[in-house]
C-alpha cells in the first residue's frame, strides 16, 4: 500500500493527488461513492465566466491511469488508528490503509431545504433547490413539475445560510453569485420568463462578480428585491404565492410565481462531522474541520501529519478549492521533507 492517503474524490482530493503524483509521490485516493468529481459534477457552468464544469473535471481524466495512484472507490473510512506509524485508516469493509500523511478532502453537502419548512420545499412541487435547477440548466430544459414553461421564477438567496434559526449563522459566500449565474442562464433559455431574486444583501466579493450583477439587471432584466421570504403557499392551480418584505421600500410584498428556486448554502458534510467526532479531530463552531490557524496554516490540522483540502474547512468556490488543495499538497510535501531530515 502507498503511504500518502487522500480521503475524498472531489476536485480538492483530485487536485491534491495530481500535485503529489506530479512530484513522484505515490497516493492512495479513497472515495466513498462510485464516481470521482464530487459536487462539481452537479454543475453545468461555473461563475463568473460560465466555464463548463466538464472542462475543469477534464483536467483529471488521466489521473486514474497513473500507476502511482491507488484508487479505492466505494470505500468509506470509519476510523484512524493513531497508535501506528504510519497512521492506519480502517474502512467500513475492513480494509486497512496506511496514511502518512493523511489529507482530508471530504467536501461539503448542501443545506437540506426541508428544514426551512416555511419555504415549502418537499411540500409544494414548484419549490426546487439551486442544485435541481442546475440539473435542468445542464439539460437545457427548465419546466415546472407540471411540464409547463415557468412564466415567473423567484430565486431565494441565503437558504440555510446567515440563519441562526437553522444553526448556520455563517455566509456560504457562493450562493449570491450562483443565483445571478443561474438567473442569467435561465433567462437565456427562457427569454420571456420574469425572474426575481430575493436577497438579504448581495455579496459580490469576486473581482468580476459586480459586473455580472449589473449585467444581470441591464442585459437580462432580472429584478432584485431586498427582502427575505416569510412564507410560501400553493394556490388551487398549483402556482405558488410567496410573501416577503421589500425592505428598501419598507412594505410587505406578495407575489405569484410558477417556480421557486432556493439557493441552498454549503454545510459541513455529515460524514466529516461524524469522522471528526469519532477520531478526535477538531471541528469549528460551524461544523467544518478547524485548521491550525486562519492565516498561514489553513491546510494544516492540529494533529501532525493530517492536512485539510478544499471545502472540508468551509465554503469555497471551485477556484479557491483548487488553490487550497495545492496549498495542502505543498504542506504535505514539506512535512515529508522535514521527516526525512
Amino acid at each position: 500500500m502507498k503511504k500518502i492517503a487522500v480521503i475524498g474524490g472531489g476536485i480538492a482530493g483530485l487536485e491534491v493527488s495530481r500535485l503529489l503524483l506530479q512530484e513522484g509521490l505515490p497516493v492512495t485516493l479513497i472515495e466513498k461513492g462510485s464516481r470521482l468529481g464530487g459536487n462539481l459534477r452537479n454543475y453545468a457552468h461555473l461563475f463568473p465566466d460560465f466555464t463548463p464544469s466538464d472542462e475543469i473535471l477534464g483536467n483529471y481524466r488521466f489521473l486514474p491511469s497513473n500507476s502511482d495512484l491507488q484508487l479505492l472507490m466505494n470505500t468509506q473510512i470509519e476510523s484512524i488508528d493513531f497508535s501506528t506509524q504510519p497512521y492506519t485508516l480502517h474502512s467500513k469493509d475492513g480494509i486497512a490503509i496506511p496514511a502518512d500523511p493523511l489529507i482530508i478532502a471530504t467536501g461539503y453537502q448542501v443545506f437540506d431545504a426541508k428544514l426551512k419548512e416555511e419555504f415549502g420545499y418537499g411540500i409544494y412541487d414548484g419549490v426546487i433547490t439551486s442544485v435541481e435547477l442546475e440539473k435542468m440548466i445542464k439539460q437545457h430544459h427548465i419546466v415546472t413539475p407540471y411540464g409547463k414553461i415557468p412564466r415567473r421564477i423567484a430565486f431565494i438567496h441565503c437558504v440555510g445560510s446567515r440563519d441562526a434559526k437553522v444553526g448556520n449563522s455563517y455566509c456560504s459566500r457562493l450562493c449570491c453569485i450562483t443565483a445571478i449565474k443561474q438567473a442569467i442562464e435561465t433567462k437565456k433559455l427562457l427569454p420571456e420568463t420574469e425572474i426575481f431574486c430575493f436577497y438579504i444583501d448581495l455579496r459580490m466579493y469576486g473581482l468580476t462578480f459586480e459586473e455580472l450583477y449589473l449585467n444581470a439587471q441591464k442585459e437580462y432584466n432580472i429584478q432584485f428585491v431586498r427582502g427575505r421570504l416569510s412564507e410560501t403557499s400553493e394556490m388551487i392551480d398549483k402556482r405558488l404565492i410567496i410573501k416577503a418584505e421589500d425592505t428598501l421600500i419598507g412594505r410587505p410584498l406578495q407575489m405569484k410565481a410558477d417556480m421557486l428556486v432556493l439557493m441552498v448554502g454549503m454545510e459541513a458534510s455529515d460524514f466529516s462531522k461524524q469522522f471528526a467526532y469519532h477520531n478526535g479531530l477538531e471541528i469549528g463552531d460551524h461544523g467544518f474541520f478547524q485548521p491550525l490557524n486562519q492565516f498561514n496554516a489553513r491546510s494544516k490540522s492540529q494533529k501532525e501529519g493530517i492536512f485539510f483540502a478544499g471545502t472540508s474547512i468551509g465554503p469555497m468556490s471551485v477556484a479557491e478549492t483548487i488553490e487550497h488543495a495545492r496549498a495542502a499538497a505543498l504542506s504535505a510535501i514539506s512535512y515529508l521533507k522535514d521527516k526525512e531530515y
Partner: protein
Amino acid sequence: MAQNYTEPSKKIYWKDYVKNIPDDDYFFFRSCIRQTFFPGAEQAFLFILKNHLHKNYFDDPRLTTCTGIGYHSDIIPLETLHTLIARHFSIMNESGYSNLIISCVTTFGVMTEVLNTWHEFPETLEKTRKNLLKTTGRTFELPKAIAHASDIIYLYKDEIGKQLVYQLVNKETSEPLKVVDHVGCHYSKIFPHHGIGGAEFPKVLSEIIKAWGGEVIDYPERRHCCGFGFRQYLIKESRGYSLSHAQIKFESMQPYHPDFILTNCPGCNMFMDRWQYVIQETAGKVYSSDGNGIPVLSYEELAALLLGYDPIQIGLFMHQTEVLPLLEKLGIQFDKNEYSKLRAESHHNTKISR
C-alpha cells in the same frame, strides 16, 4: 382531486415532532369568553374526558382570568400578569394537580410565555414569588406539564375515533368532508416546540380531521391570523383591520369549497364565525355556495357531535354562521324544530343596518 392536501407523500420535518402530552389527572383552565359565545364547547370537552376517555380532571371554580386579552392590549403590566399566573399555579398546587390543561389558545400562549420568561430570566421568577407572597400569602411550584385541550383530543383521537357515531363523511355522497383547519396563532407561533407539528404546519387539528374520516384542505392563507389580533379588534378605530384579515382568509379558502372550518382557539372561533356574518350583512358576500356561509366548529364541538351528542346540548344554535347544513351532511339526528326555535331566540335583533 387537485386541491387535496398531499402531505402524506412528502417529508415534513416538524411532522415527526411530538411533544409530551400528559395522559391523565388534568387541572383544567377555562377560557374567559368561550362560555358566552359557544357555551357547550368546554362542557363537551369535560364530558369527553369523563365519559369517553375515563380521565380524572379538576375544574377549579377559584380560577380567574389569565389577563391575556388585557396583557396583549397593553393595559395589564407584565408584573401583574406574572403574579396572576403564579396565583393560578398556587391554586393548582393546592388542589394536588400538576398537569395543566388549558382551554384557550391565548391563555396557552400567555402561560408558555411566562414559563419561558421565568426560565430565561430566573430573577423574574424570584420577583414573582416575592410579589405573590406579599399580595396573597401564597407560594407556588411550576406545573410538571402544560398542554392545550386540543392536544388531549389529538392524543386520544384514535380512541375517540373508535367510539364515533358519525364520521366526517357526506351522508349523501359518501365523500369525505373537506375541512379547513385554523390553528390559533398563540398555539405554536410563539414557541413552535409547544405545538404539535410546530408553527408552519401545525397538525394538531389536521390529524384529528384525518383520523375521523375528513379531508384536510391546504390553502394559501392557512397560517394567516383570524383577524382578532387583540388591539385590532378591541380598539374600535382599528376594527377594520380585524375584519379585513378575516376576509383574506375567507377569500383564500373559498375556491376549495370547504364544508366547515375547524379551530382550536376561542377567539378564532368567534371571529371566523361572526365576521362571515358581518361581511354578509355589510358587503352581501357569502363564502359558501349554499348561501349560509362556512360553518365554524371547535375541536370539542366536533368531537362531541361525532360522538353522538345532541347539537342543542352542545349549543350549536348559538353559532352565528348557520351550522344546520353541516349537520344534515353528517346525517345527525336531532330535533330540528327545537334547534331552529332556539337559534331564532338567540339571534333575534342581530341584523346589521347598512
